[in-house]
């Protein structure tokens, strides 16, 4: 095998110039948004929080050519002599016969490094014992390698591996009631292309059922994943929220533990990422000083305002659903009572009676709102709760939560703006970001006081929608996607969190101007979003000029041409906000 050829071949793969441009543009955009937000980030040190842990995920590999894995061992297969009953792990397969298998392999499962075929996940002792039980319940009949190859064996559907020192044992399951047990006494060095001698046994066994049972067992274990924040008084979480510099007092820890113990966290194996802002952040005191860039040692908990908790524990990542409203109210009362404000504390009572501009949605169009609407807005704002974010908190949240989207097009959209300009340079504003982040600014030429608060986006939406009838045009006419069933984007099923993000993406544009057609545009859309509603499939298409189309229940196609910012359009730029908002995640 000429690995030079592999290297040469791979080195022909070059990053496309368009990608370089795209990356640099994106980084520039983020930097510009950062500057606009007025937040400084001193992020000299990071830990490995971006490491995504590898929980047991069942996977069957379909790409391996027939019998490929077997051939390496076939040439050196040995004759096996009947041996005594098997009690101790053996370093030689010659002691194994039909009477001692699968116990021979099962005894190996107690060794230190045991993995499945996906990501070298270590099994718990309980799981190892369960695997032993499963293996022992089947009849294993040794067969010749000729029988093996002449059978239906085509590709490995599951692999169990045991490594001890420099030796390895593996039990591979194949379709067609076949399995192979292989022993490699000595692992070859990294540049030893010839490999070492291995010993192989072939078996006939109900492999499909065994694999299914192992997978079921692992799935069940996932559902029993550790509850987040259980017994917090025993955990090393000394910091609450994003950047508190003092350890949480003992009485607060105990009280917090009680609150969390009474909260229901439901493990959500389908969630892989949350596209929102962590309202609360728990970690240990060492976290900020972590120096290692390649280790995933930090235990972290994020509680998102979308009702998902993300827990990094012992190198694994788990996601849980929980009741955000209830828990946040309790945590705020316990820990942040001095940071809770109402609109009366933030906004001058008669501010809304002044000459203000109101921007609704993403179109950045000024809405002329009536006095009646202003009164309703004030009615809500004056009593709504806002939790202040300390200046230093935003920085640590930014570092720790990998919030790449906060200031970008998706969750970073400013859903609503209320601005009061005293003169050309001096302005005062409330910017409500879709992710639940409120920026209050009093600035001259962009410099001044910027304070940040956590707010409830759903409650604000409801209040403003009630107060300002014109805002109804900001709601996508095909409905809010997060309320729908299974949704596919370009053929890929998306999870619930992405569904919420996608809802945000489409929310806030001006959907008043529409054109109806008999058919979709002929060109290929950048994104096709599909979901089944009753007896039909709702199809939403977005094109690279920002146009959105969807089909209604009568088959009529509604088209919204370059929805979004008229200001941007007037500058001769094509509005591609929707495309870019979805872009980095699914393209």
């Amino acid at each position, binding site marked *: 095998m000429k690995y030079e050829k592999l290297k040469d*071949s791979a080195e022909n793969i070059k990053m496309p110039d368009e990608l370089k441009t795209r990356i640099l543009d994106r980084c520039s955009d983020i930097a510009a948004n950062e500057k606009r937000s007025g937040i400084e980030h001193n992020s000299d040190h990071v830990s490995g929080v971006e490491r995504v842990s590898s929980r047991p995920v069942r996977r069957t590999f379909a790409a391996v050519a027939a019998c490929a*894995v077997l051939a390496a061992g076939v040439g050196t297969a040995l004759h096996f002599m009947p041996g005594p009953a098997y009690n101790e792990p053996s370093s030689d397969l010659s002691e194994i016969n039909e009477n001692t298998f699968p116990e021979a392999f099962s005894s190996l499962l107690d060794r230190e490094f045991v993995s499945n075929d996906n990501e070298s996940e270590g099994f718990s002792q309980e799981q190892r014992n369960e695997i032993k039980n499963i293996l022992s319940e089947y009849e294993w009949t040794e067969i010749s390698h000729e029988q093996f190859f002449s059978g239906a064996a085509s590709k490995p559907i599951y692999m169990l591996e045991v490594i001890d020192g420099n030796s390895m044992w593996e039990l591979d399951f194949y379709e067609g009631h076949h399995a192979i047990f292989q022993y490699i006494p000595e692992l070859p060095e990294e540049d030893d292309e010839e490999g070492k001698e291995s010993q192989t046994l072939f078996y006939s066994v109900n492999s499909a059922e065994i694999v299914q049972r192992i997978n079921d067992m692992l799935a069940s274990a996932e559902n029993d994943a550790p509850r987040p924040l259980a017994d917090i008084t025993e955990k090393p979480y000394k910091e609450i929220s994003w950047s508190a510099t003092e350890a949480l007092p003992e009485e607060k820890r105990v009280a917090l533990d009680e609150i969390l113990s009474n909260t229901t966290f439901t493990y959500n194996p389908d969630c892989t990422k949350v596209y929102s802002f962590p309202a609360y952040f728990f970690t240990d005191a060492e976290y900020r000083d972590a120096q290692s860039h390649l280790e995933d040692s930090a235990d972290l908990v994020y509680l998102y305002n979308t009702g998902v908790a993300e827990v990094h524990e012992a190198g694994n990542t788990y996601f849980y659903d929980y009741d955000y409203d209830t828990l946040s109210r309790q945590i705020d009362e316990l820990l942040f009572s001095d940071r809770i404000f109402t609109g009366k504390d933030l906004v001058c009572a008669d501010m809304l009676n002044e000459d203000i501009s109101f921007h609704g949605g993403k179109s950045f169009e000024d809405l002329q709102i009536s006095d009646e609407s202003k009164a309703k807005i004030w009615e809500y704002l004056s009593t709504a709760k806002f939790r202040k974010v300390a200046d230093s908190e935003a920085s640590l949240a930014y570092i720790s939560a990998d919030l*790449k989207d906060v200031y970008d097009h998706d969750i970073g959209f400013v859903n609503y703006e209320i601005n009061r300009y005293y003169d050309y340079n001096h302005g005062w504003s409330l910017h409500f970001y879709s992710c639940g982040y409120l920026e209050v600014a009093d600035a001259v030429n962009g410099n001044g006081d910027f304070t940040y608060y956590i707010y409830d986006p759903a409650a604000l939406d409801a209040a403003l929608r009630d107060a300002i009838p014109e805002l109804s045009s900001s709601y996508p006419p095909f409905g809010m996607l997060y309320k729908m069933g299974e949704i596919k984007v370009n053929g*890929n099923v998306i999870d619930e969190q992405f569904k919420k993000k996608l809802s945000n993406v489409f929310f806030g544009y001006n959907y008043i101007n529409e054109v109806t057609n008999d058919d979709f545009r002929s060109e290929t859309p950048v994104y096709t979003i599909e979901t089944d509603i009753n007896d039909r499939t709702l199809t939403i298409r977005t094109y690279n000029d920002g146009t959105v189309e969807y089909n209604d229940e009568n088959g009529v196609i509604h088209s919204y041409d370059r929805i979004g910012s008229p200001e941007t359009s007037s500058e001769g730029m094509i509005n591609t906000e929707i495309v870019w908002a979805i872009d980095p995640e699914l*393209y």
Partner: protein
Amino acid sequence: MLSNDTIRDAVEEYGDILYRTCLIMLKNKADAEDAVQDTYVTYMKKAPDFSDSEHLKAWLITVASNKCRDMLRFRNRHRTEPEEALATLIQPTDDTNILEALMSLPEKFRIVLTLHYIDGYKVEEIAGIIGKSGSAVKMRLSRGRKLLEEIYRKEYMYEIRKAQRFG
């Protein structure tokens, strides 16, 4: 946050290796582009401080491979396999057969062989990057090599010999 110039330098210096690694891992051009872009955005935002360029390179590869793993996990959970044929990813030549064989391997062998034979990392360095033990990496190298040879031999050498014999 890092400056645009720093990002530009990192893109020029390590863009090819990251894109190559992601493409081999994900077998999908658009996904690979997203993974690389996300990696640089993470780099810009976290602005890690490294003592030397090799450390930076290893960090970028670690972040990129984690993002690939995340995307593969998502695909796996949702039973989608948006993989593309190699011919749609790069210009095929006689030499790309072995690359195609590499890309047909299971994920865990693919990343180890890529890091070792294409990017030139040693076993212990790979162990640090993918977060596995040296023994596990050694095992994967060994198994991956055998699988790769077998697939290459079965799938491609026969075609080559046939072509040579029958013109």
